[in-house]
């Protein structure tokens, strides 16, 4: 059995994104407590399909990136805080 460290190594972008994310879907948790590798949906944070819509809106307003449903890509992008942050850093305009 492994022990999970309580302090997660969030990058500065992940920290900022975690704050926007908890606000967008009103997650009742400290943004710093989000494990960047934890799945956002299903057994992880337990978000649902309407939350996806809220997160997409947040990403659009905060980072100017428009998300679309390319089935495979999306599953990867929305997998975790880290994957979402990666998508943002590689697609951010300018």
């Amino acid at each position, binding site marked *: 059995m492994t022990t999970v460290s309580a302090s997660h190594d969030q990058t500065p972008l992940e920290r900022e994104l975690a704050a926007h994310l908890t606000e967008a879907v*009103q997650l009742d948790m400290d943004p710093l407590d989000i494990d960047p590798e934890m799945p956002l949906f299903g057994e992880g944070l337990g978000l649902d399909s309407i939350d996806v819509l*809220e997160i997409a809106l947040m990403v659009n307003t905060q980072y100017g990136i*428009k998300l*679309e*449903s390319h089935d495979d890509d999306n599953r990867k992008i929305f997998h975790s805080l880290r994957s979402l942050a990666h998508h943002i850093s590689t697609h951010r305009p300018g």
Partner: protein
Amino acid sequence: MPALPDLSLITTPGRPVFHTAAGPLCGTQLLSHAWALAERLPERPIINLHTNLVQFTLVFLAAMMKGQYCLLSSNHAVSQLMALQQAHGALCTGPSLPESLASLTLPPLAELTSSRQDNIQLPAGHEAAHVFTSGSTGQAKVHKKRWGELVARSHAALPLLAPSRPDGTTLLGTVPPYHMYGFETLILQSLHTPTATASGPCFFPGDVEKLLDSTPSPHTLITTPIHLRSLTTARARLPGLERIISASAPLPRELALEAEERFHAPVMEIYGATETGSIASRRTVSPDPWQLYDGLTLTADPTDDQTHICMAPHATPHPLNDVITMQGDRHFHLVDRKGDLLKIAGKRTSYGALNKALLQTDGLLDGCFAPLFSEEDLKEDQPEPTRLQAFIVAGTEVTTTAIMRALRQHVDPVFMPRRLVRLSRLPRNPVGKLTRQALEGLIRDHAEKRAHPPFSIPASHPALPGHFPGNPTVPGITLLERIFTLLELDVRTISTVKFLSVVRPGDPMQLLSSALGNGQIRFTLHHLSGPLKGTVILRGQAGSQP
């Protein structure tokens, strides 16, 4: 009964039924693919869970070619699907299903070819689908949809969905095809009438823009209040949109107005239920009543003045879930949802009426009234509501005080919410309905923890000696100090406190409290035993904010 239009699987199959990324898909191609699939299907009903519109349609057509029917349910919990499978001896098909379900994987379209393309006519009485209600009015129930009823209804809805060019309009939608609303608008409409449906991802605002851009104009968008809000917030660019159709969940007027201005298309709300299908529409921004589809009638139930029965060609008559008032034969106003009536302190209203008042509030994006229960109340079988709360979705610029002030103009004081609970959204289902189950979950999650553990002030309390010699009484300030400790409240202001009864040292007491939502807490202290049991010692209100 009026003569039925064409009862074949696809009306005039030489035309495009779907527009896909690979180009238009004609009715004859669909028939060929569906016959090939039918050859591979067992003689069993099919639980059709596909979200891809072409795949959904192929399964639907193939099932009917085999003389079978599809089961359509919005509840995709594995336990629910297993129960359906067992009850109907059915097979599941859809994207990424768990292995525990007996399922059928759809081969790629290229492998589904058959020389058969015949466009068979089905009897009007053929059971085409068993559709399950969403449960917003109680337990999920099955409704059998017969082919004749479905064909007739598509034709009745055509003027609404394709107002200017019935034979050239492209429908596109953010709703799933396995729900009655999506089934009628995105699947059946294009099978039965000359419209075509755009098939492709259609969920995010970017998807809608892209699908609109890649398919022929004019377009009608089929959506829900939640998706419509995401489209307006994202400032989606939707040129060539002729009309927007929204489920009535309900749709706030302010949102409809914003969508009309942004997308230059009228927003029409559809009224209906799984039992009846869609039966009427109205333009949300206009004060006009709901207009019934042609060919349908609403008749007052002679045995119950609260009920109207919907009669439609080839359909079983169904009572409406709502109380309505007719205006002539073809128009009506919605009054209340049945089973929605509420009685507090001898006064009556309905959640429908309260929600309507709530949604009129400036800046409010969504909201609903609900009974306010404590954890104690919820231990009872069917607790009676005595106080209400409202769940609201609004920007931070809309203050609680402003909402309460606006509500007070329309709502009787006994029905005023005791608190407003801010949420990022209400747990509505994909077509925007707030099911009873979801609402009950919210009420449970937000139940008040209001009964505090009993306590007493002993005679040895330092404040007591010297007070009222020979007539020992607990000073009010001592009680308040203990109350604020129990409430874990850093009190800045005490709005009111009324002392109503005397407390002796050792008297057991219990504190009840309720949060008002604006940082204020209302509290009551009661005697817990003895001749004064239940008597109020004091009541008041205090806040942690000045």
